[in-house]
């Protein structure tokens, strides 16, 4: 019984917020332009799902995000590994990465619009940009923080260069790579929203921005709820299991998840 | 003995109640941080300061001690863009342009005059000539 209570603890703040929302709305009775009621949001959510509009927008957003994620992971981890293993490449790429991380993501928006016009290519580029540098930096850090001792161990056992990379460097860097990917997911999600709010016609960001024209705060809130939920799902349902199956199984300290 | 940065420090020397060693070791990041903050302050306030220091060469001497609102002509070294017109309109009523580089402003209070003279991108502020 106590264990069930413990598992349900995370729900408490959400419930608390819900109570505040309902009570607050009942007391203040704001207009739709100011703040919607719970029932309004639920109703709007239902309407959006029914009309398929929500589905379409989610698909558009997730599609762009997915493409960018795959591209950014491949390029980020690949280049990060390369840079970590080769001092020459590191000398060139690392200072660049420092600078570009400082202006990654949405800062490229105007330039991306000039290059690609408004649309999906532009948005994917912006998201890729936001994710790539984070993943790259963390991969590089990860490769570098593999203790030299481990490489020595493989070598004393007669391992060649390739085995060093595949058996020591890759797994050793993995916690940092995963941390980078987690951060990258966050940055990418933000960049997606920002790019869509400013320059798109379809997608979650566009959906909530169009609602401003009509002062439909219920659409905005419904959209935000969906956005938050998707983000939470991605965080909890994708990353944590991956972490559990790889890092914690290998007995390394996770850099992203703290134990209670 | 040395700490990590190679400086010789004494174990018992100190600044107040923080042990001397700890303060010396932490001095470099502190200095770095202070120089960063100073740099940012310079970026944020520097141009304004520069403008205020050079205010004298901008403002026509006849306008230096006016008591009430005046009409002025503001000249810049370039064609004013939206940003400049907006900034000017906050100090007076826009009353047309003269040529490419000058803007006429009416009803500029002495306080506004001071503000205008502090804007370093303005070349000169003269009393408005009657048309």
């Amino acid at each position, binding site marked *: 019984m106590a264990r069930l209570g*413990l598992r349900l603890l*995370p729900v408490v703040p959400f419930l608390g917020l819900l109570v505040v929302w309902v009570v607050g709305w009942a007391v203040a009775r704001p207009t739709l332009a100011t703040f919607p009621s719970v029932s309004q949001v639920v109703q709007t959510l239902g309407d959006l799902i029914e009309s398929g509009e929500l589905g379409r927008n989610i698909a558009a957003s997730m599609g762009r995000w997915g493409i960018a994620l795959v591209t950014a992971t491949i390029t980020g981890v690949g280049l990060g590994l390369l840079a*970590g293993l*080769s*001092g020459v490449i590191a000398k060139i790429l690392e*200072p*660049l990465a*420092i*600078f570009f991380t*400082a*202006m990654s993501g949405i*800062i*490229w928006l*105007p*330039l991306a619009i*000039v*290059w690609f016009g408004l649309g999906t290519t532009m948005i994917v580029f912006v998201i890729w940009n936001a994710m790539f540098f984070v993943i790259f*930096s963390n991969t590089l850090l990860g*490769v*570098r923080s593999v*203790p*030299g001792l481990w*490489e*020595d161990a493989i070598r004393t056992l007669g391992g060649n260069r390739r085995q060093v990379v595949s058996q020591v*460097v890759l797994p050793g860097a993995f916690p940092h790579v995963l941390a980078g990917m987690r951060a990258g997911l966050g940055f990418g999600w933000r960049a997606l929203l920002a790019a869509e*709010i400013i320059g798109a016609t379809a997608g979650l*960001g566009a959906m909530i*921005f169009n*609602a*401003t024209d009509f002062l439909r705060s219920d659409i*905005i*809130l419904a959209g*935000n709820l969906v*956005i*938050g*939920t998707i*983000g*939470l799902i991605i965080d909890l349902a994708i990353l944590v299991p991956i972490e559990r199956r790889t890092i914690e199984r290998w007995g390394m300290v996770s*850099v992203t998840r*703290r134990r209670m | 003995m*040395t700490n990590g*940065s*190679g*400086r010789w420090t004494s174990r018992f020397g100190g600044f107040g109640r923080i042990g001397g060693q700890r303060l010396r070791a*932490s001095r470099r*990041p502190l200095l*770095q941080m202070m120089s960063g*903050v100073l*740099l*940012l302050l310079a*970026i*944020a*306030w520097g*141009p*304004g300061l520069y403008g205020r220091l050079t205010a004298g060469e901008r403002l026509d001497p006849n306008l230096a001690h006016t008591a009430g609102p005046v009409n002025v002509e503001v000249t810049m*070294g*370039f064609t004013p863009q939206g*940003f*400049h017109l907006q900034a000017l309109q906050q100090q007076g009523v826009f009353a047309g342009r003269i040529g490419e580089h000058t803007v006429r402003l009416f009803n500029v209070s002495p306080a506004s005059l001071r503000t205008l003279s502090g804007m370093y*991108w303005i070349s000169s502020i003269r009393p408005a000539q009657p048309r």
Partner: protein
Amino acid sequence: MVKAPTTRIMRTTRPARVPGPGGADGLPPGLPVAGHRPLRASARRAATFAAPLIALVVVWAGVKSLFGLSDDVLVSPAATARSAAELVRLGILPAYVSASLWRITLGAVLATVIGVPIGLALGVTRYGARMFEPFLRFFQAISGIAWLPLAVVWFGFTNTTIQVVILYTAMVPIVFNTLIGVQLIPDIYKQSIQTMGGGRLRLIRDVYFPGALPSIVVGLRLGIGYGWRALIAGEILTGLPGVGTLIFEARKFHQIDQILAGMVVIGVLYLIVDRMVLAPVERLTVQRWGVVRA
């Protein structure tokens, strides 16, 4: 430590801090670790700070000439510098930069002043992390930028809109990391103060706050990172004077030199804020309390 035969992997496999001044800097082995001349050390540090910019300019110019990119796609570093100088001459750049800096500073200060106490309060509750972690993650996922439309509905296209969004965006990581920081403190510290008769205030001052400080600083760094981007987005959306507006307006007239100038300025500003102001603070706290950053 035995000097192992240096292979190329070994040389770069030293435990490294995130690239920054005074870290693993690729010096050839053999240079003594301790006992540097202070002058050489600070010169090296300055070089490490300038290295990103130098590399940027070199690669930039290289890419432009190598691929023969037209001026519609990329302008040379020289043209960008000229554009930046022109913007300074016109008084636009300093005014916009000031406006943005004020916004982010105000947002960061408010977020810290409000967020840290909240985080502390949440952290001292039993099971605080377990209870609030998904909640805070949820709101972090929504991110400030998604609240921009609502803020516009409430406050219009004004400065308040931007400021509110920055505040929110920066506050969530700060609260979250403060919470985590408090929860990470081993119980024994709290108990030792209590056995010595310390009350709650003493606990906060001597245990919770210092103990959580490294995490708080990490949260602050994250918060400013996110807040910076929210600032840009907010400026783009509202069109108020700011660096974001600068690059967005230039887009209308395809003034790539101005866009690039603005982007470089933004990058440099953020580098200054992050590396010169925040990184030392982080190093100070980590040095003092030696906690591995989460």
